[in-house]
């Protein structure tokens, strides 16, 4: 008789096997520390269109989703093949006509290898939220008052490529003596040796060999410092078109933007696809209401007031007319980052300018910002960097607290992996003006707006913690999802925004492929079309491809509830998350 390879249910279950096979087998060479995996299936959704395959894939992804919920974590499941999965792999390898499948010995070796991969234990099926008390009882109001004596203001430095962002940032740190002359001397010698002497100040921020050899910034660089009255976080961002994603990351961590404008070549950044316009548009779309416009390289244009006024006029028009900035929220100043004019020291070359230097402006901005925090607002923090630890259940993560407050001893939940961890300690890294010493101070309390490092303990599995994850209190976990409704503002487009066409969506420091899945309203009217035109405001449903993401609505958080959409290298739309569509 025939080995019954027939019948409906059999065929269906067969079709699901390759998925597991792919993902599991590819991870054999995975290095211990970093999370890597290869899979062909993760993107097949977008690559296939026929009905059957799609059906199939929805089966697989349903299954995936189910696994996700049952085990708390997808990757965990796949990096940790159960006996059943191992059997499946073996069986499937034998069946498959691909690659090593014909060789039985190899097959079992593969399957064994899979099981040998050092695997961390899977997240428990359901773990009751462990809510732990702060280690130390503190007088909250007193601690808050202390914090508010030196509030933190975060600002991002943005602008077209080569406008002098890194040089200005380096100059600021140098003139505040946070970078000592020995360090600068060394950088000057090094930059001279490769014929890039003019970049010595920029190299304070531009660290990697890539950045130094090419003379452009690639990723953001953040530094914290304290003056007598205030505390600041400065984030230098890249200006090159290709690195707008990194710049967006910087903007999402800032309260205020300093746009650096090159007075000698203002026009090249101000054309339609120049980054002066794009950066300012993004900043406004992500909720930056106040902007310092630093007209830089005034030395190159002979400290000309006419040139300054001309640029100021054009920018004001663009910012107020097109981006709807309030005129009073725009502060202009002429400067030279390279020479240091009007950065920390008042310029002698600009007698016609009677305003403040940059540092004075920042001090007064910090005072005018309302730092009052609502003690009851829920704790949320975005992870911005993950630092290795030698222990499996420990990890240090850094990030900015988006809302609420937190103390050592409390336990948190990390989404989307939905793990819990205990906060062992909280530190803040900063320098004092006048000293190049970098301090790492332990905190009894950390509040909204602060950049902190959290040392986590009792983690289920550190491998699943990624940049962009959201932390919240353990009794208030954030459930990830992959669909949401959104109020979307389209900018000037060269191609329509079509249903189904993938784009890159930015939310806080994450970027991820997504697409429109439906368009409900356009400019307030019911819509039947499958496309969006330039300068429309619409209500749409956005579907995130590849994975689920922890999301908050605009109502819940004014910063995390915003998204920016880029396609083919252009910023095409920005939106506010209205509702999460959990399945």
């Amino acid at each position, binding site marked *: 008789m025939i080995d019954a390879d027939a019948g409906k249910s059999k065929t269906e279950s067969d079709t699901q096997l390759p998925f597991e096979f792919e993902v599991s087998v590819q991870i054999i060479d995975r290095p211990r520390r970093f999370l890597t995996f*290869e*899979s062909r299936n993760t*993107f097949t959704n977008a*690559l296939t269109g*026929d009905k*059957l395959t799609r059906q199939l894939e929805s089966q697989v992804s349903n299954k995936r989703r189910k696994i996700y919920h049952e085990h708390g974590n997808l990757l965990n499941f796949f990096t940790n093949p159960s006996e059943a999965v191992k059997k499946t792999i073996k069986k499937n390898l034998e069946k498959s006509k691909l690659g090593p499948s014909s060789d039985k010995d190899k097959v079992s070796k593969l399957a064994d290898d899979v099981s040998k991969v050092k695997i961390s234990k899977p997240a428990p099926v359901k773990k009751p939220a462990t809510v732990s008390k702060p280690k130390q009882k503190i007088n909250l109001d007193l601690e808050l008052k202390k914090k508010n004596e030196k509030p933190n203001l975060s600002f991002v430095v943005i602008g077209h490529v080569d406008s002098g962002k890194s040089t200005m940032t380096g100059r600021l740190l140098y003139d505040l003596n946070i970078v000592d002359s020995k360090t600068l001397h060394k950088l000057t010698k090094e930059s001279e040796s490769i014929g890039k002497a003019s970049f010595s100040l920029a190299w304070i*921020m531009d660290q990697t060999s890539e950045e130094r050899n090419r003379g452009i910034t690639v990723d953001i660089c953040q530094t914290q410092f304290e003056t007598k009255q205030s505390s600041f976080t400065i984030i230098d961002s890249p200006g090159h078109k290709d*690195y707008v994603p990194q710049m967006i990351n910087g903007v999402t961590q800032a309260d205020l933007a300093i746009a650096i404008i090159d007075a000698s070549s203002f026009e090249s950044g101000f054309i339609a696809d120049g980054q002066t316009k794009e950066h300012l548009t993004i900043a406004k779309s992500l909720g930056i209401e106040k902007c310092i416009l630093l007209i830089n390289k005034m030395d190159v244009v002979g400290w000309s007031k006419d040139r300054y006024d001309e640029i100021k006029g054009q920018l004001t028009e663009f910012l107020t007319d097109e981006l709807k900035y309030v005129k009073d929220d725009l502060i202009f100043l002429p400067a030279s980052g390279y020479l240091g004019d009007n950065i920390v020291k008042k310029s002698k070359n600009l007698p016609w300018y009677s305003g403040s230097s940059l540092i004075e402006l920042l001090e007064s901005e910090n005072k005018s910002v309302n730092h009052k925090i609502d003690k009851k607002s829920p704790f949320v923090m975005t992870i911005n960097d993950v630092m290795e630890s030698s222990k499996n259940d420990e990890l240090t993560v850094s990030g900015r607290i988006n809302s609420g407050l937190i103390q050592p001893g409390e336990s948190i939940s990390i989404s989307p992996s939905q793990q819990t961890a205990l906060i062992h300690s909280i530190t803040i890294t900063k320098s004092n003006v006048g000293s190049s010493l970098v301090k790492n101070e332990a905190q009894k309390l950390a509040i909204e707006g602060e950049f902190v490092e959290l040392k986590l303990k009792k983690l289920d599995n550190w491998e699943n913690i990624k940049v962009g994850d959201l932390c919240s209190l353990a009794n208030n976990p954030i459930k990830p999802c992959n669909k949401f409704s959104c109020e979307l503002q389209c900018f000037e487009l060269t191609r329509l925004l079509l249903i189904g066409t993938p784009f890159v969506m930015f939310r806080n420091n994450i970027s991820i492929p997504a697409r429109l899945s439906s368009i409900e309203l356009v400019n307030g009217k019911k819509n039947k079309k499958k496309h969006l035109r330039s300068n429309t405001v619409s209500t749409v449903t956005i579907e995130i491809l590849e994975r689920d993401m922890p999301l908050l609505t605009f109502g819940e958080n004014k910063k995390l509830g915003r998204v920016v959409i880029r396609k083919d290298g252009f910023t095409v739309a920005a939106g506010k998350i209205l509702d999460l569509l959990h399945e």
Partner: protein
Amino acid sequence: MKLISQEFEKDKSGKITLVAQDKDDLWTLYNLISKDDEITLRTQRNIKKKSTNSAASATTIRKTIKLTLNVESNEFLPSDESMRIKGRTTEQNDDVPLGSYHTAEIQFDEKFTLHKDNWDEQYLKLVSDSCSIEAKAELGAVVLEEGVAHVCLITDSMTVLRAKVEKSIPRKRRGDSSGHDKAMDKFLSMCVDSCLRHLNVDHLKAILIVSPGFTAKLLLDKIMARAVTDGNKTLLQSKSKFVIAGSSTGYLQGLEEALKSPELKKQLSDTKFQQHVALFDEFTKYLNDDEGKAWYGEAEVEKAVMELQGAVKVLMITDTLFKTDDIQKRKHFIELGDKVKEDGGEVVIFSSLHDSGEQLNQLTGIAVILNYPVPNLDESDDEDD
């Protein structure tokens, strides 16, 4: 595909014997084979044999048997590069009872015979296109950015993601970027490994490396450095096959973006894949300019083709629309195509296994570019908002 023989009757019924040679052929067959066709092929089965030694239990032997199936459904698994057919046997033999259900896979380099009651023009075109001797161009592509890379194969009819490499890269810090640099180096090495494992450079026409910034260049340098240390002559000699292009993202959509750049457009203009990307882009551009020169949707297309003679420059349609059990519908789409060609237009069939085809599918799967603007083509049914 290789055509072995064909035999047709006056009523357009008949059979064709074919041999599939690559995964593109499997996709063609997926679109060719439909419900109620009859297929005869050879397949391997485990047959239980009673052992001569009565004490021992039955042993299983592997045997090649001939099956003739009345097709109920078929499915294509791009990840697996396999195409399975499900149906009921219409012929009996020693090993197979009549009317039993079976699933069979089309094997490469194995003959099979397909009978259809109605070989329409579209079916015949599928066969003749895939049997044409024109060399098929297969491309490799790596789309990457710091921390994530996608290794793909691109054929005429599909884009297959072969591998995804991910690695978290620590941020640079003021005064120290060693963690970042080290992780980046490791990440690129992992990409090289993955490329060498999944892309057969010898066999490919070109390999595109696409990224924002300089990452693509760094990867190519690393691949070539590896070729030197490994003494890999084929790889060294294939250096000119590698093409670097820019994109704004390392996600897969970066591939399409790069293909729209003038440099690659020129370089790959002879591949179907690139042509479809360019055509879809042209379509969306017209759509944006709103001159009434581009329309999508069955009703709109129908109107343009049937009522405005000679207006259609290109009819774009996905293979998904033809893959239907509704014979009338299929016939209708074929008629639309015929009419367009008759009137001097062009018909382009998009593969839904490419991103461009998937995107067209999301826009109803059918669209036209017109020779001249017709602003209110959709008037009758769209003014009630």
